[in-house]
């Protein structure tokens, strides 16, 4: 493999190849060889009988070097073009593949999903905006939308507030700061399903009179209360789920906000203290306004995550008892034999809802880099 790449790498600048015929031969020959090699490797990879280790090795090398070879090759070909034309084509050689991949795996599916959202349950009949009408009129769907609204407001609010408070507090505990931060950030490293398992035990309930093994119910019964079924009691169950997500993302908020707070000059804080501000005033009138852009970015990022929330609900209640959210509903419709049309419409709805926040985040990122 590496012997194959060697000549390509040397020839790609093309400057020592000044003689015409040789140049012509190479410009035909190298692509042909590369093509033949890639074709051979493709055939080999499909071969069920071939040596597993060899196949894995070839797959790896092609994954890494194949892309590299393709780039070098196309670059080499643009070098052969007349200078002005080559200059114009060259950017597309590098951006082109990315654009193609983006189109195949992103734009086309979006378009197709939109198309499906205008069709009926088994995608055979065009029904216009009827699926969308269902989303905004059906009683069950309205609960789903309401829940998403609830999530959208609570999770960013809770997680950014807690993150901010914790960030300010850990800033003052000195040498234990990084340890404390690591612990608070830890839930972020757990998958939502893992978090679900953790919180299943937090919320676990047994019939009254039995020993409660759920953390919360154990406490409640210990102090004389009666056990609560957190996940089945409306509307407590929605809050119970929201707490899980808050628990997961607060660490992220804290870390980002903490970095923002570190950027606030201590002299500015000292100036405010000398100007007569107490610690609360320093916090609300100096720190918070200065890190406001950070707070907004963190908030919108969490917002995007919340819009996509699926796994927590799927694992904990699967939408039972008025806890359904759009992403889980979409999954149910699309893959659990509901309606492909309705599921697609929900997907489009999610996409539309997320887009403005993504745009705002990208803008903010660009503004800060500038």
């Amino acid at each position, binding site marked *: 493999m590496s012997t194959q790449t060697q000549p390509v790498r040397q020839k790609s600048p093309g400057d020592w190849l000044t003689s015409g015929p040789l140049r012509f031969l190479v410009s035909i020959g190298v692509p042909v060889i590369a093509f033949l090699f890639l074709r051979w490797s493709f055939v080999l990879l499909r071969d069920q009988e071939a040596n597993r280790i060899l196949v894995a090795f070839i797959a790896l090398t092609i994954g890494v070097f194949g892309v590299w070879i393709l780039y070098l090759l196309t670059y080499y070909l643009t070098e052969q073009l007349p200078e002005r034309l080559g200059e114009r084509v060259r950017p597309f050689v590098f951006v082109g593949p990315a654009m193609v991949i983006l189109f195949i795996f992103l734009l086309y599916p979006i378009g197709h999903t939109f198309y499906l959202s205008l069709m009926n349950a088994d995608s055979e009949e065009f029904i216009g905006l009827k699926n969308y009408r269902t989303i905004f009129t059906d009683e069950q769907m309205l609960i789903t939308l309401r829940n998403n609204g609830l999530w959208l407001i609570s999770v960013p609010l809770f997680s950014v507030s807690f993150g901010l408070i914790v960030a300010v507090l850990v800033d003052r505990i000195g040498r234990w700061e990084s340890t404390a931060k690591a612990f608070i950030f830890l839930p972020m490293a757990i998958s939502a399903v893992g978090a679900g398992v953790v919180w299943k035990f937090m919320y676990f309930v047994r019939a009254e009179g039995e020993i409660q093994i759920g953390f919360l119910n154990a406490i409640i019964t210990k102090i004389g209360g009666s056990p609560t079924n957190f996940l089945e009691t409306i509307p407590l169950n929605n809050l119970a789920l929201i707490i899980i997500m808050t628990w997961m993302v607060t660490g992220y908020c804290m870390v980002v906000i903490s970095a923002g707070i570190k950027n606030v000059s201590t*002299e500015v804080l*000292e*100036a405010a*203290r000398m*100007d007569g501000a*107490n610690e609360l005033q320093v916090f609300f009138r100096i720190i918070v306004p*200065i890190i406001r852009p950070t707070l907004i970015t963190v908030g919108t990022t969490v917002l995007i995550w919340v819009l996509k929330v699926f796994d927590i609900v799927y694992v904990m209640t699967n939408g039972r008892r008025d806890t359904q959210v759009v992403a889980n509903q979409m999954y149910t419709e699309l893959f659990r034999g509901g309606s492909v049309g309705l599921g697609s419409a929900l997907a489009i709805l999610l996409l539309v809802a997320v887009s403005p926040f993504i745009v705002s985040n990208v803008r903010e990122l660009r503004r800060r880099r500038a």
Partner: protein
Amino acid sequence: MASVSYRNVWKRWGDVVAVHDLNIDIPDGEFLVFVGPSGCGKSTSLRMLAGLEEISDGEILIGDRVVNNVAPKDRDIAMVFQSYALYPHMTVYDNMAFGLRLRRTPKQVIDERVRETAASLGIEQLLDRRPRQLSGGQRQRVAVGRAIVREPAVFLLDEPLSNLDAKLRVEARTFISKLHQRLGTTFIYVTHDQVEAMTMGQRIAVLNAGKLMQIDTPTNLYDHPGNVFVAGFIGSPSMNFFDNSTLFEEGGKMIVDTGYFRVEVQKERHELYRPHLGKKVVFGIRPDNIAHSQFVPPGIIPAPVEANVDVVEEMGHEKILYLEEGGKTFLARVDPRSDVRVGQRTQVIFNMAVMHLFDAETEQALQ
């Protein structure tokens, strides 16, 4: 307005002593400068007065109130920081009004005071701008404005000019001096730049390694440095020192032998120096007090010394000579018309009326 006193003030960071038994009385309305190399404790001393740093030991008084346990906001002081520390999210107006608003000053009074102060500083056209839209010099003025608008009893400045370029710095120097004359408030100013200290301070406190080396008027510090450190720190180029000098008497004359050359001590100082005869001393003389033999100023007590010319720096209004004798280099600031060339052996004239002798052990001036 208020006086300020440091009484046996110490600052320790664990085992490190940042400020060592500081005692200073600053009368009401004085412009005092803390000066010293970095890490000498000058900023720490100021920050303890501001309440931004705990006082490890001793007392600080503002007026006749001990402020050790008084919060910064209740000390009736204002401070200009090196970075200016303007609130980046507020306009200039809001920056200046912030302190007044926290004190619940009536809106009308705030407006009046902010506009008046801004006008007096020449920044009234900037009131709607934000700090990042201002130049360094403008920011510096806003920082000063924010401090004085509150009419504090004591005004603290922590290296306020070090972020300005050289030309602005000279302007800002006179600006701050004038401000002090106008307000008549106690100013305490921290700098590492002895030129700033000399030009602005009514009195200068020279600190080194956490200790107060000397506190006096600029002229007295220059003319009568109390020790080798102050002698070397104040004045530029700094004083020439000859460390291994000895003092002896010969035929009614008192002689300093530096090991490189000998110079005679003037009669008036014989009594003063007699106890130190035969001891190791440090002989010091400023480059300003070494003239070239071609242009000897009148009224000096001359002592000729021969030396080789190593480097000549032409400054236009003067020449700085780097002279070398027996491996020892010393500087002289001579008349620009002096005819000296590198490599030449030349004769320079020391003015013995203004030479300094220090005890080699204690580094204290022999006085």
